[in-house]
């Protein structure tokens, strides 16, 4: 089993990518220094009013960053920020005042509690019916609000005072500028962590599942678990915001923790832009400016009593207006522009370096040779799938041997794709078993099939929207990394090294498939043929034992098909077993070791290409039977009909 050799074109691209990496390495410490400088200087020049205002914006920023991680990254609609905000604030208040726990410890314990609550609620909801999360979290927020408002321990509606300022190793954050510094340093850290997560393995998985849940599962992403973790991470940040709030005001009462706050934060995030944490910072700032503007204007128009309702009215309408006109928000607009410029520049570099597309590998003797192994890697036994009265797959037995290419053919509607979905775990069979190696995996979720070494492509291109081609393929390598949420938020050496390793691996895969020059292009904007190839790359990036391909040739021209055939042979030589559905008979007859013919959901014939080609039954099935070839006269329906 030989590793494919690196070709000259690949070495040519390497330096170009390295310089951009160097730029990035210099850029990020620079950004941190600038951030710290601005944060230190601001309260010294801005005066008390603006410093106070900016501190409020800071705590809101934290809540908004938390929400961006849930709603922006993972596409889940949560109204929980206020609930976890309350957990942080009241947790800090109760622990510091009643138990004398040091502020920092109380802050971390509260955040831990928030995390646990989020986990306990998120895990079952995301597994069952994620789209009701919004109502569940709305109820959660209201429950915490009512408890705070009614419990004796929390001081009821009159609140709870006497909270000491936060003191860390003797340094007390007791003045406005110090509080500002604290708030915005924490915001900076959260922003940095959120940005890191966005670029990391975990962030990719989240954006992937938002883009295409089934494809993300096929890449081995445990969808409910990923959603739960980001929800819990967001709860942690919201709780920190609450603790800071308590230490700044030294007093907590229920009103700031109602549902209105969650809606407020949502407005910030929508206005600023859901795509990334910068949107949260921009949104929190803009909303505060708008609020100040309203408070300046409304009383003179409608009287002082109108301020609260007037603000809400404007916010509500703004929310709808932004969603209708600019759903990616202010940062989305700016970011899209900046991103386009950057990606275009990187793309230009790639174009210059890698003009030679699809380096057709010459077929070595090793690639061409057939591997006659009798080791079964994938077995389907009596597999049946019914949709209502339709038997899509009817009692099919199928085996896939190690290092073979098995082609599945049959007329449209014969049940090929359904069978593939059963083998990849995307559908659960009505009856029968799927065995991978020695392991019965029937009924398990799709991501576990991926963990057993099965990768697949889809019939209609199922790439992740909003991600570039390289990021799409990187999701394929998901299972070969193990850096989770927390380690990517605080990038350790190991995390960075892993990212580099996976990057290098998938760059190699993309090069082999002649896709390197498209790395920075938005995946869903590519041509059909390129999208299909990219999906193959994503699946190969999983380094599976078993590769299932659903019509990989659709949209490819003859040259590309030949190149794909060469790649598939090479994968076989490297130890993979392949099952492919394909309509291009020439391709099939060329590449397949065996052919499995399906008709009306049943196995019609299994054999070598030559045998299948010679079988008149198969020719009839595949070419279409003329209706003149007689059928038994008015025989009752062949399919069984439920009474």
């Amino acid at each position: 089993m030989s590793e494919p050799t690196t070709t000259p074109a690949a070495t040519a691209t390497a330096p170009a990518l390295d310089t951009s990496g160097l730029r990035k390495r210099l850029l990020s410490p620079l950004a941190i220094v600038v951030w710290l400088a601005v944060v230190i200087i601001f309260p010294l020049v801005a005066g008390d009013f603006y410093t106070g205002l900016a501190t409020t914006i800071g705590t809101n920023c934290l809540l908004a960053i938390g929400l961006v991680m849930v709603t922006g990254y993972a596409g889940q609609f949560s109204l929980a920020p206020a609930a976890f905000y309350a957990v942080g604030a009241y947790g800090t208040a109760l622990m510091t005042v009643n138990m004398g726990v040091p502020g920092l410890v109380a802050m971390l314990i509260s955040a831990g509690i928030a995390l646990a609550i989020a986990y306990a609620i998120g895990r079952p909801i995301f597994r069952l019916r994620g789209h009701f999360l919004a109502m569940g979290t709305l109820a959660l927020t209201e429950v915490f609000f009512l408890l705070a408002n009614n419990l004796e321990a929390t001081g009821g509606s009159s609140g709870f005072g006497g909270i000491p300022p936060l003191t860390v190793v003797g340094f007390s954050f007791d003045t406005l500028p110090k509080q500002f510094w604290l708030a915005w340093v924490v915001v900076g850290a959260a922003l940095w962590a959120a940005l890191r997560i966005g670029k990391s393995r975990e962030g990719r998985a989240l954006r992937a599942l938002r883009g295409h849940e089934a494809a993300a599962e096929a890449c081995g992403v445990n969808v409910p678990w990923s959603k739960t973790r980001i929800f819990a991470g967001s709860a942690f940040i919201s709780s920190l915001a609450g603790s800071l709030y308590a230490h700044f005001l030294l007093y907590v009462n229920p009103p700031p923790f109602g549902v209105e706050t969650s809606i407020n934060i949502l407005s910030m995030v929508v206005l600023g832009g859901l795509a990334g944490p910068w949107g949260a910072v921009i949104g929190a700032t803009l909303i505060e400016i708008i609020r100040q503007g309203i408070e300046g204007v409304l009383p003179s128009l409608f009287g002082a009593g109108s301020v609260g309702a007037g603000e809400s009215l404007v916010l509500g309408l703004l929310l709808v207006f932004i969603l209708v006109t600019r759903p990616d928000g202010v940062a989305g607009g700016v970011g899209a522009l900046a991103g386009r410029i950057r990606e275009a520049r990187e793309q230009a570099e790639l174009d210059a370096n890698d003009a030679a597309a699809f380096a057709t590998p010459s077929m070595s003797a090793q690639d061409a040779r057939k591997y006659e192994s009798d080791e079964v890697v994938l077995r389907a036994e009596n597999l049946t799938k019914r949709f209502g009265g339709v038997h899509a797959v009817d009692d099919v037995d199928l085996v896939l041997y190690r290092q073979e290419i098995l082609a599945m053919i049959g007329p449209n509607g014969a049940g090929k794709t359904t069978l593939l979905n059963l083998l990849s775990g995307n559908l659960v069979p009505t009856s029968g078993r799927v065995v991978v190696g020695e392991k019965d995996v029937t009924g398990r979720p799709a991501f576990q099939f991926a963990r057993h070494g099965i990768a697949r492509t889809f019939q209609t291109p199922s790439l992740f929207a909003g991600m570039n081609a390289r990021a799409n393929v990187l999701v394929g390598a998901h299972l070969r990394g193990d850096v989770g949420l927390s380690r990517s938020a605080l990038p350790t050496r190991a995390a960075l090294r892993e990212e580099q390793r996976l990057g290098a691996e998938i760059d190699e895969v993309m090069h082999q498939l002649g896709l390197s020059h498209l790395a920075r292009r938005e995946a869903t904007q590519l041509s059909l043929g390129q999208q299909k190839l990219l999906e193959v790359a994503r699946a190969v990036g999983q380094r599976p034992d078993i590769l299932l391909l659903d019509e990989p040739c659709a949209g490819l021209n003859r040259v590309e098909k030949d190149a794909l055939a060469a790649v598939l042979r090479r994968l076989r030589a490297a130890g993979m077993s392949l099952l492919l559905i394909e309509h291009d008979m020439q391709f099939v007859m060329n590449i397949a070791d065996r052919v499995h013919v399906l008709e009306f959901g049943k196995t019609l014939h299994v054999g070598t290409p030559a045998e299948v080609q010679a079988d008149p039954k198969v020719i009839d099935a595949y070419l279409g039977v003329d209706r003149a070839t007689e059928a038994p006269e008015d025989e009752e329906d062949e399919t069984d009909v439920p009474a």
Partner: protein
Amino acid sequence: MFLLEVTDLYFRYGNARVLEGVSLTVDEGEIVTIIGPNGAGKSTLLNVISRSLRARSGSVRLAGEDITKAGQSHVVRSGCILVPEGRQVFPTLTVLDNLLLGGYVHRGGSDETLARVYRLFPRLKQRANQLAGTMSGGEQQMLAIGRAMMGRPKIMLLDEPSLGLSPQMVKRIFDALEALRAEGTTLLLVEQNALAALGLADRGYLLQTGSVVTSGTVEELSADPNVKKVYLGASGDEDLTPAEASVLEREVDAAVHDSGS
């Protein structure tokens, strides 16, 4: 004037060009078939004609009236009705409800039309109160055609009615289509089962990567070497093995002969 006249139709899906200047005509009382390999744009073409999809440019005229930009319900009311790929019946409604919905643009359709449907597909009458989703694929196809009949179409567009059906069932469905034509309904038929389609049709068009490659009568198409290659599902740039060619020729001759008789 043609009953249906499609001129220079373009359609894109994202960056993929699906239709690139398709023109075709269908005369009243004809059965016209569109054949071509997977991904040629056949389904898209029918969906654009029936206004499920909006054309990028080009025009569709139904009995002289330009319906390219008309609303979908107007197109249905004017008598251009699609029987979609995969049947798409309403699985949780009864067979009767499905049929009545077919006549939605005529406030449920008349008893007379319903009787016609039942005459053509007695099976549907037996199962009138059964949920559509519990029926077999062939019965669902009958229902899909029956549902379209309820809209009293001048021209019925059929997208792969033989999909996933056994030969016996395909025969039954195609017999029904012939009966429909005898009653005066014009048919535009997309089929992968090209032999069966050519056996039924008067004329045909060969569609490949979004444009019409060849068109003509069934006899002309059968003689066209391009069409034979399409039968094989190959991409049309390689030659058939002698064995394949002989099988095909036999099949095509039989199909043509049958349609002539």
